[in-house]
């Protein structure tokens, strides 16, 4: 992984190319009290390089579990997950995640937290420092490099977590409901930032969320999951108009369609 940016980046259109992330017939069960409980059932999903995929569903539909499988943290499942045509075998530097909680180490400064992601990168100290500074700048927190996590607001801490995830220039960015714990205003602001940052980095992003607006606004594609066991109900492409304007008819129509699929009907007249 000497050249993390070797592949010609984003161009989010190519349908002919083979998918960067290929999930094939993945099923996953947990054993609870001696009984197998299926959490994911026969999930198949192909993600093009540079795409932003939103996965939306009620809690308990196995969204986070799916991300854990893609990360390689859990290898006990049926089916196949391939990255660039190679099966996933444990965590790797080309994948990064932002968890729902910021999960920063409270005893390290902001820059040390971000720098921790680069310890395995093979970069020398000066290059690591530059990468940390660049990514803190990207999330607008260069002034807080020496601060400790407890001195930051929830939104700032989550931005640091985003910087940490991106520091190694991963080609796959997994977002496990990273804005779910934030207040509404901060969430809206960070949605904008996330969109800008992911586009800037050219990563392939997988966002798991239960916020339908967020899913539609950020994704090129919205994947709707049904719960117990988690299975794909629909894969909906997002029109460019919906992605750029939250009040556009396209946005509203798609959002209502997703809500309907999730069993929440929105008929007001």
């Amino acid at each position, binding site marked *: 992984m000497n050249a993390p940016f070797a592949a010609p980046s984003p161009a989010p259109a190519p349908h002919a190319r083979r998918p960067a992330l290929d999930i094939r017939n993945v099923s996953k069960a947990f054993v609870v009290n001696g009984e197998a409980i299926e959490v994911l059932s026969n999930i198949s999903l192909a993600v093009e390089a540079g795409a932003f995929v939103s996965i939306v569903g009620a809690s308990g539909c196995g969204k986070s579990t799916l991300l854990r499988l893609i990360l390689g943290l859990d290898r006990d499942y049926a089916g196949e997950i391939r990255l660039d045509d190679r099966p996933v075998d444990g965590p790797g530097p080309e994948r990064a995640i932002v*968890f729902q909680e910021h999960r920063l180490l409270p*005893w390290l400064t902001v820059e040390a937290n971000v720098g921790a992601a680069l310890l395995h990168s093979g970069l020398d100290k000066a290059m690591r420092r530059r990468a940390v500074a660049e990514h803190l700048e990207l999330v607008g927190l260069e002034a807080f490099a020496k601060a400790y996590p407890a001195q930051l607001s929830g939104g700032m801490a989550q931005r640091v977590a985003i910087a940490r995830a991106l520091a190694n220039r991963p080609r796959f960015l997994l977002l496990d409901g990273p804005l779910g714990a934030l207040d509404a205003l901060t969430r809206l602001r960070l949605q904008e930032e996330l969109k800008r940052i992911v586009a800037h980095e050219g990563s392939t992003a997988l966002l798991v969320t239960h916020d339908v607006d967020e899913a539609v606004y950020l994704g090129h594609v919205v994947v709707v999951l049904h719960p117990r066991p988690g299975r794909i109900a629909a894969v909906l492409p997002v029109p460019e108009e919906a992605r750029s304007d939250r009040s556009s008819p396209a946005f509203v129509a798609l959002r209502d369609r997703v809500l309907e699929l999730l069993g929440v009907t929105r008929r007001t007249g």
Partner: protein
Amino acid sequence: MSIDATARSDSPADSPAASLAPSRRATARRYGALRPDWRPLASFGALLALWFAAHHLGWIAAKYLPSPLAVVERLMSEIRTGTILDDLQETLRRNLSGLAIGAAAGLALGALLGISTLVGRIVGPTVLAQRQTALFAWVPLLAMWFGGGDTGKIAFIAVAAFQPVVIGTWRGISLVPATYRELSDVLLLSRWNYIRLVAVPSALPMIFTGLHGALIYAWLATVGSELFLNISPGLGGRLNQGSQLFEIDLLFLAILLFGLIGLGYNTLAERAEALLVRWNSR
């Protein structure tokens, strides 16, 4: 006269407690749990008053209970012409040497136990069994191995200090939250970086609890070693001297010094712990 006496004898014995008070108040304020700090002083004063009464009203024969004033006088004469300061120094040297050896061994083995499940499985039960052995049961064995002199004493203190440190370090490092371990996996941290950046800082409060325990145990063991092993320069030796020669003022003085140093250690540890907790959760 007796009021005057109280005030005078109060000052040397009382000063550590008095200097402790503001910090305690500050700590209490910092954590929002306001605790009136006159209570410990009140009980201390009451005890002192009782002591005065018991001696001066003749409740207990002077042979068995010296006047507090006699103890202060003994301290003064000891400082001027006696050996008490050398004894104190000897005792502290012994205590700190044993503490350092025991704590270092405890940290090393505890870290190994916490990091390697294999080592934990093989050595862990033995360490736990060793903990169940009453501390003073080691005295005869260590006396045979290391002799009753300085080496034997330090060995005993080291054993005492080792126990809480090894347990605290082991538990602390093996109980790193699963979320942090998951993060370390995702960040592909090497084992060394995991220990340095995640495991040790996360375990620090528990390690510190172990060290705090070690401080107290080592002090107990210091007293014990000086009493049960060969008599040599040190506070324990003076304690023996006091009881054998019936120098009741010396006996009381030695006990008070042991108590005050123990209190000082404890205060030091508590303050360091408060600082550490603040640092750790900044």
